[in-house]
């Protein structure tokens, strides 16, 4: 069996591991500086601003094409979501009423009894 110290594959893996640690540590140090935060957020802010401007422009374009804008689609989605929510509530009320009436619920799986006790100190698992 080849000794790990002499195994070129193990040496390569160790080197990769060390490089990863070293690079991560170096990058973490660099990213801790306020200058990094400033540069990163400046770039992020420009991207967000550009995205907003592009969105406004696209909305005007869609309006001229007589197509619904994202905002209008979002409005429809909000109404759909509200309907979904109300359906969920009705479903929940119906299942409660059904449970209250004692009628068997379709698809209900019998539950095991809630009698489980923790294993004894001897380590026995029930």
């Amino acid at each position, binding site marked *: 069996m080849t*000794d790990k110290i002499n195994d070129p594959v193990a040496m390569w*893996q160790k080197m990769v*591991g060390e*490089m990863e640690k070293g690079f991560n540590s170096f990058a973490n140090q660099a990213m801790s500086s306020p200058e990094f*935060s400033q540069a990163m*957020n400046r770039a992020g802010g420009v991207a967000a601003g550009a995205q907003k401007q592009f969105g406004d422009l696209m909305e005007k374009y869609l309006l001229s094409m007589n197509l619904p804008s994202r905002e209008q689609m*979002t409005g429809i989605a909000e109404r759909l979501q509200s309907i979904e929510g109300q359906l969920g509530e009705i479903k929940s009320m119906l299942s409660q009423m059904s449970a209250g009436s004692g009628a068997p619920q379709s698809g209900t799986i019998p539950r095991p009894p*809630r*009698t489980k006790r923790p294993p004894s100190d001897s380590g026995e698992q029930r």
Partner: protein
Amino acid sequence: MNAPTGLDFASIPERIQSEVQRAIQRSIKGVEYFSTSGPTLGSTPKDVLHSRGTMNLYHYRPQSDEIYRIPVLIVMATTNRGYILDLVPGQSFIEFLLKRGYDVYMLDWTAPRPEEKSLRMEDYVLDFIPDCVRRVQQDSGEKDVSVIGYCFGGVLSLLYGSIFNDGPMKNLICFTTPIDFREMKLFSNFSDRRYFDVDRLVDSVGNVPPEMILSSFEMLRPASRTVSQIQLWENIWNDEFVKSYRMFDRWATDTLPLAGEYFRAITKDLMWDNKLFNDNMSVGGRAAKLANIKVPILHAVAEHDHIVPYDAAKHLITKIGSTDKEEVMLKGGHVSLVAGANAIKRLWPKLDSWLGKRSI
């Protein structure tokens, strides 16, 4: 025999043969890798008890002849999917709990839709969690509920527990939960209030895109993604390694967007003002002090957690109001603490021994 220089000449032919075989295997398995999908994740049988927008409440079907009286509600982090706790049979935390006799529910999240950008911290803490707890009570017929929160799910559970401190929460378990956000040094620097205009970002994009969340996680260890791909190539002949790689890689890159207003509140109240640590946090005008929590609590932290460093999590136990409280530090990282081979032998049995006797 080893030469004095340290090179084992006798084993070289054997080693070359082994490496050639692995190279052939790599080529075959490499084609397989790109032509197949990974293992099916999150397949433990469950029912969707309730679904509303970004919120999903699952009930997992019991797998033991008798179960503990108190049901368990797992609150997942809002940035990631809950299937990290339900990978594949034999490596699923959920399956482990079910087999040990727990009645398990999970509050999991889907990507908030564009119209959900207005969801606030109040919606999560004062609506979603209490709603799920009520539904768990109704479904199980029990008034007590144990809550397990992972990462930011732990923060939400703490906020819930500190506001509804006379509520149904009977036990609280937090996994790698930060409370001192100054100590999340890189995140803190990325969101430095002098340079990070959170209002402009949220007003521009609505929901914070998942790519941005993923990038900020990956920036914590910028070399690790490349190195993990090198490791994948080296080990692609090894089916177990590839299976594990695919599971964790798929989960790690399956990041969720964050609702805009919710992200704004996290940035201002937690990252900037560190309100939870400073005891002046409130949600919807209701004070959320950690000292209000009096229920038994277990906080599990990871020794090598690069996302939530120990310094960001260590004050939780001292600041909590409970008398029955314990912190346990286990080997592993932010994810390997809760999932994978490390978790199976360390965290899961610890949690079972702690929670079992408090679940009757």
